[in-house]
């Protein structure tokens, strides 16, 4: 039977949470496409194979010294080896930093179509339709693949995590993997800072809509102080140097789960939302009624943050 093959993501000897979500996605696609879910573990020694086999009926391992660190070159060769050796219909990859780095290369190596950054699948008569965000999350589109095989990458959180349960088979696929043209030297920490916003119970976060550094300080920092909370920011605010990197919330920043998260002048891009959607109460202040942030907020005010925030300060007293 054809397989929907998850490429397991792992660092420092552990499977990523995203991998378990991919196992769920593969199961959904497989049942719609008359296929069976499976996973590939590409690593130095296959030591996570038994762990991975708790989530899928079949695990294929490619083990090679050149797979010690993730690289696009080595991963692509290894995926190709599994697809050549087994009956694989689709390859499912996380839309993570590593996934984005190699998924399109796999699609090129297989000569097949790729639909990236998906969050949903639907099946119509064995034909799989992928749903994905476009236009900064304001619009969604559906796509299908014209080729026999497909590669799809999935947004983090698009599927629940698959439950551990089974004890799938583990099969080694032999392949000789040549050295990558990119060499990994080290992994470094770049956001060390004096504050740890992940512990705050109230966070006031400002986005590009706060306009400039002085205005950001004026509204966001002051409201945070008034509420006895911490101030934070979306990525463009940090990129522009209006505040420190340690205060960035999102996929490439901190994950926070305060009681109250106030997002002002933040559109609600998936990479930002990834870092704050677990907050207990979310307030969105945005002048654009269609901003995606309103889809995840508890309370929203459609308006100019430079009018709304001073009025909030007054109301707090």
């Amino acid at each position, binding site marked *: 039977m054809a397989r929907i093959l998850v490429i397991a993501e792992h660092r420092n000897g552990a499977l990523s949470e995203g991998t378990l979500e991919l196992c769920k996605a593969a199961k959904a696609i497989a049942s719609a496409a008359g296929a069976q879910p499976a996973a590939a573990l590409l690593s130095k020694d296959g030591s996570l194979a038994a762990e991975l086999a708790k989530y899928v009926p079949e695990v294929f391992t490619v083990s090679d010294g050149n797979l010690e660190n993730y690289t*696009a070159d080595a991963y692509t060769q290894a995926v190709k080896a599994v697809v050549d050796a087994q009956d694989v219909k689709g390859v499912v990859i996380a*839309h993570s930093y590593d996934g*984005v*780095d*190699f*998924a*399109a*290369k796999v*699609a*090129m190596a297989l000569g097949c*179509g*790729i639909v*990236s*950054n998906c969050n949903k699948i639907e099946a119509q008569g064995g034909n799989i339709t992928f749903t994905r*965000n476009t*236009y900064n*999350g*304001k*619009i*969604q*589109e*559906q*796509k*299908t693949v*014209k080729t026999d095989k497909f590669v799809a990458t999935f947004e983090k959180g698009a599927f629940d995590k698959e439950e551990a349960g089974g004890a799938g088979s583990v099969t080694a696929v032999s392949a000789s993997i040549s050295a990558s*043209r*990119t*060499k*990994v*030297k080290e992994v*470094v920490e*770049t*956001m060390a800072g004096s504050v740890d916003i992940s512990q705050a119970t109230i966070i006031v976060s400002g986005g590009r809509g706060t306009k400039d550094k002085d205005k950001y300080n004026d509204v966001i920092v002051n409201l945070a102080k008034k509420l006895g909370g911490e101030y934070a920011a979306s990525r*463009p605010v*940090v990129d*522009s140097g209006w505040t420190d*990197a340690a205060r*960035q919330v999102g*996929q*490439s*920043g901190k994950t926070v789960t305060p009681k*109250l998260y106030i997002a002002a002048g933040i*559109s609600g891009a998936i990479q930002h939302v990834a870092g704050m959607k677990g907050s*207990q*109460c979310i*307030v969105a202040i945005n002048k654009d009624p*269609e901003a*995606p942030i*309103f*889809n995840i907020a*508890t*309370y*929203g*005010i459609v*308006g100019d943050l430079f009018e709304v925030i001073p*009025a*909030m300060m*007054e*109301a*707090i007293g």
Partner: protein
Amino acid sequence: MKIVVCVKEVPDMESKFKIIGDSKIDESQIAFKMNDFDQYAVEAALQLKEKFGGEVMIVSAGPERVAKEVRQAFAMGADWGIQVQDPEVDAGDSFVVASALFGAIKTIGDVDLVLTGVQAEDDQAAVTGVMIADMMGVPHCTNVVKLDVDGKNMKVNRELEGGKNEVIEMAMPAVLSIQSGMNQPRYPTLPGIMKAKKKRLDVKKAAEVGCTAVGAAGSKTSFVKMFFPVSDHKAEIIQGDPKAAAATLVNKLKNEAKVL
């Protein structure tokens, strides 16, 4: 050093979007601009040119109006460019666009570096640069936030989740996708804008750059439809003028959500 930057024109995301017949955006309502991430790529290329000499070329695929974004890159300091202006490319998927850009890059010849943005704000695909690298037969690195060049060798920081970077060594020629925040993109100066008007912009059809994968036939994926997301959860929108709304909100945060 010969550096190509791929620049895409995208809608301003604060535009009012209207969908026509669940298949396309009503472009008459849209303001267009350069893809944010591509500005960082242009800046990175200009800094390399300032340090090591050479040339910065812009390639872009899109209708006539995208010349505005190419000229903006010229005004920042890029030297010349190629615009693949072909409705059959615009009708294709990422694979077709990558094939067209690759074709344009090939006509330039002996390119050391190709820089792209990490993703286009409109299609959010994050695949084009990797595809171009594969077509060129060169290595790539995505989400680059730092770059040190020494001859043909590069030390590249690739961004990872949660504030980490992976430090990578690789050699040119290569394709790098540039992440926001890597630098502070410069604003075009007035003399820059004047000069930009006279810089060379070659306008080509797909066939003229040797690209045969075009249109729906050349694509590996098909578009089905587009729609506004329906959220099963929508915020409770608090009505009223800013003062009244703010007062109601504060009251709700205190007494309903009990988070203040």
